[in-house]
């Protein structure tokens, strides 16, 4: 039964691919300039403007495409930073153990004892709200849970017989890492990447919704919501489109992650 694709997984893959291609192909797909007013404010959806116009009359659909580019890009970069920092340290802690592990784990506990958004606000006030600072901050904050996950994944694999066998055969540490540990850790790490991406995506969106991220030339989804949310008390639902896009992509990635986890989870009992 392994590897069978479920309905939920198909939905997830369609959402993820749709969002990804919308973001990558934004300059070719967008019908209008995302930053150019071209009508009156809050025009309802029409044949020319599929999602209507925003608070100063810019085409909402084009803005969504370009905004997705920024939002997804920033979250992806942050997640990559988190993995580049967290995974190697996690591997080292798990494989060497001893005092390195004993030193790193309490540090991780201390960082995690404060909510990441509080750390982020403190860093913004201390350094700046530039986009590169935000990406590094989110990446470094999430490298801590990534470190923990990588450490426990590798610890679990090291305890298995085939690693023991390789070591008894006299294989070197590096060979064991490359041929035995890495291939077996990869599916779990991929799932962790999906989970982290979702959290980083929501995190960056929240920070820019709070207006604490310096603006790039194209507005991301979070700041689009912030700029237009004043229209909500007037009963206009358009500010919710970018927020809904954030939720939709997160659901999509979560569905794919759940499928990955169920596919690679080791069968228990007799077929193990």
């Amino acid at each position: 039964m392994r590897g069978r694709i479920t309905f939920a997984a198909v939905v997830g893959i369609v959402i993820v691919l749709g969002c990804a291609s919308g973001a990558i192909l934004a300059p070719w797909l967008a019908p209008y300039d995302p930053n150019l007013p071209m009508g009156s404010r809050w025009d309802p959806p029409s044949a020319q403007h599929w999602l209507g116009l925003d608070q100063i009359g810019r085409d909402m659909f084009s803005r969504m495409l370009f905004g997705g580019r920024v939002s997804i890009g920033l979250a992806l970069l942050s997640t990559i930073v988190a993995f580049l920092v967290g995974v190697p340290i996690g591997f080292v802690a798990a494989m060497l153990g001893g005092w390195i592990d004993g030193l790193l784990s309490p540090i991780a506990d201390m960082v995690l004892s404060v909510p990441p958004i509080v750390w982020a606000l403190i860093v913004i006030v201390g350094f700046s709200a530039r986009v590169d600072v935000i990406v590094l901050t989110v990446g470094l904050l999430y490298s801590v849970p990534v470190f923990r996950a990588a450490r426990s994944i590798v610890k679990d694999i090291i305890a298995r017989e085939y690693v023991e066998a390789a070591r008894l055969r006299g294989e070197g540490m590096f060979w064991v890492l490359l041929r035995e540990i890495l291939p077996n850790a990869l599916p779990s790490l991929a799932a962790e990447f999906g989970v982290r991406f979702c959290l980083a995506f929501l995190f960056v969106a929240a920070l820019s919704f709070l207006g604490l991220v310096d603006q790039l030339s194209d507005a991301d989804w979070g700041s689009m919501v912030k700029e237009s949310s004043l229209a909500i008390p007037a009963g206009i639902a358009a500010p919710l489109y970018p927020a809904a896009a954030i939720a939709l992509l997160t659901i999509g990635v979560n569905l794919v992650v759940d499928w990955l986890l169920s596919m690679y989870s080791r069968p228990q009992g007799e077929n193990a």
Partner: protein
Amino acid sequence: MLKLLGQRLLLSIVTLIVVSALIFAITEWLPGDVASNILGQQATPENVAAVRAELDLDRPPHVRYIEWLRGVLHGDLGRSLASKRLVSEVIGPRWSNTAFLVLYAALVSVPLSVVLGTLAAVYRKGVYDRLIGVGSVTAVSMPEFFVGLILILLFAVQYRWFPAIATYKPEHVFTQHLQAMFLPMLALALVVAARMMRMVRTSVLTVLDSPYIEMASLKGLSRSRIVMRHAMPNALMSIIDVAALNLAYLIAGVIVVESVFTYNGLGRLMVDAVAKRDVPVVQACGLIFAAAVIGLHLIADVLSIVSNPRVRLSR
């Protein structure tokens, strides 16, 4: 057991001190030229000198940190750079507003998710379980501000049942407070309960899979008796952990939700202070949020130590 509790308390205090040092280092030491950093565009020589004097930047950082920590312990959090008022005065009223909101959301979300999560575990793989599963994946994926804005559009604009802007007015009676803060509470509680439900379900399932539950059902006990008498006491410890973890999410979520509902709490104060680069206020708010979460984990650990008979009864 007392020794264990003492160790746990000591760990919390050490963590809080390390966190306070980190907060201080990030805001006043690592960035280098703090004064011009705070002022940004308005960094004229006079302004820079004023901020340097205000923050006492000419003295070495470790001396300033010790002084700051001593001040914090005596309730002196310095003066706000923006309004020149005492930080403790600025924070005072905001602090109780946030505490009210967090408590309100916690009292709704914890019992709700324990009941719903347990039911989903007991009726595993049933329609109800699937419904809870789909609902919680959806709710977990929604940013807090999206949930908040939908609630405003629906219940404040469309139906006008609750106010869109939550304010804590001292002249209100208790039920009016509950009504005024219903929407921000609901936004927080929904996001938190969605996570908590899933985790409660997993904790209860782990217990339900154990041999003594199979034994109990083979003895012919009724399902409700198995759940209430055999499963729940053993799931209690992990449920306490789950609740603590999620209440920590709740404390973090308050920062965004207060901004959505323009609620005069500590979270919005902190966001505003970050925008104004008001370092002393951000330091104080950060420290309070950190202390709240660290305290929460401490309480959870104490509760699970006390509720674990193996630890409690061992000498």
